[in-house]
C-alpha cells in the first residue's frame, strides 16, 4: 500500500494533468450511456484530480521542489528538448486553487445545467479547462505554458458561449477569444525571443542564463502586458465583466481560476525568470539608483490602484448582478497586483551576499497577495454561485427586477451573506486576514495606497449591501411568486465554498504557515527553482 502511494506521489505531477485530460475525452463516451452516470463520472474525475493535487502539494510542501521529466525517467539529458514539470510551493499552491473550483463547479452543474442540451461537450470543456489551468501552474517549460494557456482560453471561450442563443454570451465569448489569442500570441513572441537568445525553453534554464539584454527587456514588456491583460489588470480589464457575466455561473467559477492562473504567470515571470535581473541599475539620480524593479514595481502599483478604483466604482453603478461581481473581481485582482508591485519595488541585494532579497514588508506584501489569491477564488466563486442560484430560481440577473428573495431562499441568503462579508474583508472571514496583511505592508510603501485600498474595500461592502437590499430584502414581488429554494447539488457546492471560507477565516495562521508560506518562499528564492533543473547554485 505504501509503495503504491509512493508510486502515485512520484507520478502525481503528470497524473494531475493527465487524469482530467483523459476524463475530458471519456466524458462524451460515458455520456452516450447515461446522463446521470456521466455527471457522476465527471465529479469522480475532478475529485480524483483533487486527490492527486493534494498528494502533490503535500509532497512539495514537505520535501521541496519536484521535477518531472516527460518520457524519460533518467535525469535531464538535454534541457532544450525535454519537457519538464517543475512544481515548487507556488505551483502547488496554485494547483490547489485550480482543483477546488472545478470540483465545486461540476457539483453545481448537476442541477444548474440539468435542462440544457449538449452537456457532454460542456463537461468535456470544463475538464479541459481544468487541465489547462493545472498545466499552466505546474509546467516548468515556457512553451508548454503557452500551450496550456491556449487550451484554457479555447475551452473557456467555448464555454462562455454555451448559451448560443444569448447575445450577451456570444459577444462576450468573441471578445474573450480575441483578447486571449492576442495575449497568447505575444506571450509566444516573447518565448521565441528567449529561444533565439538562449536556445532554451525551460524557465529555469532561461532564468539561469538570462542577461537582461535589450531583447530581454522587450520580452519582459510583452510577457507582463499580455499576462496582465489575461489577469484583467486595468485598463485591460474590460473583457472580464463581459466574460464573467456572459458565461453560465458554473463556468464563471472556473474562469476565476483561469484568471488567477494568468496572474500566476506574472508572478513566475517577475520573480523566477527575471528575478535578479530586475536589479539592473537603469539610471543614477544622485545617491538613489533607479532599478528596473523599482520602475516596474511602481508601474504595477499604479495600475493596481487604478484597477481597484475602477473596479469598485463600476461595480457600484452596475445593476446586473453578475456584471457587478465581475467588477468586484477586477478590484480583488487589483489587491493582488498591489501586493506584487509593492513586493517587487522592495527588491534589493542583501549585504555580503549575491542573493536578491525583499525587505520584510515586501515579503509580507507577497504573503498577503498570495493568500488573497486563494481567498479571492473562494469569495468570488461563492458570489457567482449565489448569482447562478438566483438566476436558476428567477431566470433573472438584473437587480432591478429582483426583490424579497430572502423569504424564499434561506440558505442562498446565508451563503450570500458569508460571501459578502468575506469579499469585503470583514472579520472573521478569510478576506479579512489577507487584506489586513496587504494594508499593513503597503503602508510602508505609501500610506495613501492603504487609504485607497481600505476605502475601496468599504465600497465593496457597499456594493454588496446594495445587492442584499435590492435582491434579498424588500417585499415579496408578485413577479417572483413561484421562486423556490435551489436544488441540493447547488446548495452543497455553495456549502463547500462557504465552509472553506469560514475555515480560512478562522485559522489564517495555520493556512499561512502550511500553504502560503511555502509559496512565498518559492517565489522569493528563485535560486532553488533554477538549481533544481540546472544543478549547482
Amino acid at each position, binding site marked *: 500500500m505504501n509503495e503504491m502511494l509512493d508510486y502515485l506521489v512520484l*507520478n502525481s505531477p*503528470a*497524473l494531475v494533468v*493527465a487524469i482530467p*485530460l*483523459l476524463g*475530458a*475525452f*471519456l466524458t*462524451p*463516451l460515458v455520456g*452516450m450511456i447515461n446522463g446521470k452516470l456521466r455527471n457522476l463520472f465527471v465529479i469522480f474525475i475532478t475529485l480524483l484530480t483533487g486527490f492527486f493535487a493534494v498528494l502533490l502539494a503535500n509532497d512539495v510542501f514537505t520535501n521541496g521542489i519536484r521535477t*518531472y*521529466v*516527460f*518520457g*524519460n*525517467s533518467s535525469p535531464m539529458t538535454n534541457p532544450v528538448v525535454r519537457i519538464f514539470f517543475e512544481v515548487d510551493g507556488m505551483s502547488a499552491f496554485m494547483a490547489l486553487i485550480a482543483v477546488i473550483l472545478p470540483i465545486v463547479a461540476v457539483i453545481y452543474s448537476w442541477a444548474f445545467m440539468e435542462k440544457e442540451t449538449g452537456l*457532454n*461537450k460542456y463537461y468535456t470543456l470544463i475538464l479541459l479547462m481544468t487541465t489547462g489551468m493545472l498545466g499552466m501552474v505546474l509546467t516548468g517549460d515556457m512553451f508548454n505554458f503557452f500551450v496550456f494557456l491556449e487550451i484554457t482560453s479555447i475551452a473557456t471561450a467555448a464555454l462562455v458561449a454555451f448559451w448560443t442563443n444569448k447575445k450577451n454570451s456570444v459577444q462576450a465569448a468573441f471578445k474573450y477569444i480575441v483578447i486571449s489569442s492576442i495575449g497568447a500570441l505575444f506571450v509566444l513572441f516573447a518565448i521565441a525571443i528567449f529561444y533565439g537568445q538562449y536556445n532554451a525553453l525551460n524557465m529555469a534554464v532561461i532564468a539561469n542564463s538570462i542577461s537582461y539584454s535589450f531583447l530581454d527587456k522587450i520580452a519582459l514588456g510583452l510577457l507582463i502586458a499580455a499576462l496582465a491583460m489575461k489577469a484583467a489588470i486595468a485598463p485591460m480589464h474590460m473583457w472580464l465583466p463581459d466574460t464573467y457575466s456572459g458565461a453560465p455561473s458554473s463556468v464563471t467559477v472556473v474562469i476565476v481560476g483561469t484568471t488567477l492562473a494568468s496572474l500566476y504567470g506574472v508572478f513566475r515571470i517577475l520573480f523566477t525568470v527575471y528575478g535578479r535581473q530586475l536589479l539592473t541599475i537603469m539610471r543614477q539620480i544622485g545617491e538613489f539608483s533607479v532599478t528596473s524593479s523599482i520602475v516596474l514595481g511602481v508601474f504595477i502599483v499604479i495600475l493596481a490602484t487604478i484597477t481597484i478604483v475602477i473596479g469598485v466604482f463600476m461595480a457600484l453603478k452596475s445593476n446586473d448582478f453578475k456584471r457587478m461581481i465581475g467588477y468586484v473581481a477586477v478590484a480583488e485582482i487589483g489587491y493582488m497586483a498591489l501586493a506584487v508591485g509593492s513586493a517587487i519595488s522592495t527588491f534589493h541585494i542583501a549585504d555580503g551576499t549575491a542573493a536578491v532579497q525583499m525587505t520584510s514588508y515586501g515579503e509580507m506584501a507577497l504573503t498577503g497577495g498570495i493568500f488573497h489569491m486563494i481567498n479571492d477564488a473562494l469569495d468570488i466563486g461563492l458570489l457567482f454561485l449565489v448569482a447562478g442560484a438566483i438566476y436558476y430560481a428567477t431566470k433573472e440577473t438584473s437587480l432591478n427586477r429582483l426583490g424579497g428573495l430572502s423569504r424564499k431562499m434561506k440558505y442562498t441568503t446565508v451563503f450570500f451573506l458569508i460571501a459578502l462579508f468575506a469579499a469585503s474583508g470583514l472579520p472573521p472571514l478569510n478576506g479579512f486576514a489577507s487584506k489586513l496583511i496587504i494594508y499593513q505592508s503597503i503602508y510602508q510603501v505609501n500610506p495613501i495606497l492603504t487609504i485607497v485600498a481600505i476605502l475601496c474595500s468599504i465600497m465593496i461592502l457597499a456594493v454588496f449591501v446594495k445587492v442584499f437590499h435590492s435582491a434579498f430584502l424588500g417585499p415579496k414581488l408578485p413577479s417572483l411568486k413561484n421562486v423556490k429554494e435551489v436544488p441540493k447539488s447547488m446548495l452543497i457546492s455553495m456549502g463547500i465554498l462557504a465552509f472553506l471560507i469560514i475555515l480560512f477565516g478562522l485559522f489564517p495562521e495555520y493556512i499561512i504557515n502550511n500553504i502560503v508560506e511555502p509559496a512565498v518562499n518559492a517565489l522569493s528564492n528563485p535560486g532553488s527553482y533554477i538549481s533544481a533543473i540546472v544543478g549547482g547554485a
Partner: protein
Amino acid sequence: MSGMSKIVKTISSIAFPFVTIYGLYIIAHGHLTPGGGFQGGAIVASGCAMILIAYGSVWTMKKIKEKHLSVFESAGAIVFIGTALLGLSVGAVFFKNFLYDGGIIFGKIPVVGSTIANINTAGVIPIMNFAVGLKVIAGLFAIVLVMAYGLPKKEGDKK
C-alpha cells in the same frame, strides 16, 4: 448548403480516394519525414471538406452524423493519452516510449546517420501519430460540417 453540379461531384468523387491515401501516407510516415498526425489529418479532412462542398451539407449530414465524428475524436484523444499512460503503467514515466527498442512493433532502432527510412522504428510515436490523425480528421471535418450545416441552405436565403 446545396450540392454543386454533376461535373464537380464526379471529379471530387474520383479525387477523394487519392487525397485520403496521401493524407494517410503523411500520417504513417510522420516519424520518418516531415508530416505526422496533424498534417496528414488536415489533408484527409480537406478531402472530406471537398466532398462536403461538392455534395452539399444536407446530403453529407445524412451520410455521417456529427455525433459519430465526435466519438472518433474522443477515441483518438483517448488512444493518445492512453498510450502515454501506458508508459506510466509499465513502471516508467508518463509519455515513456516503452515500445522503443522492444523489437516487436515499431521497435527497431534506426541506424545513426543518413540511411534509407525504416518504418518499423520510433516506438509509440507512430501510434500517437495515428491517434492524432484520427482526432484531427474527425475534429476538422466536424468543424467544417457543423459550420456548413449552420449556414443558409440556399443562396440568397437569409437566416
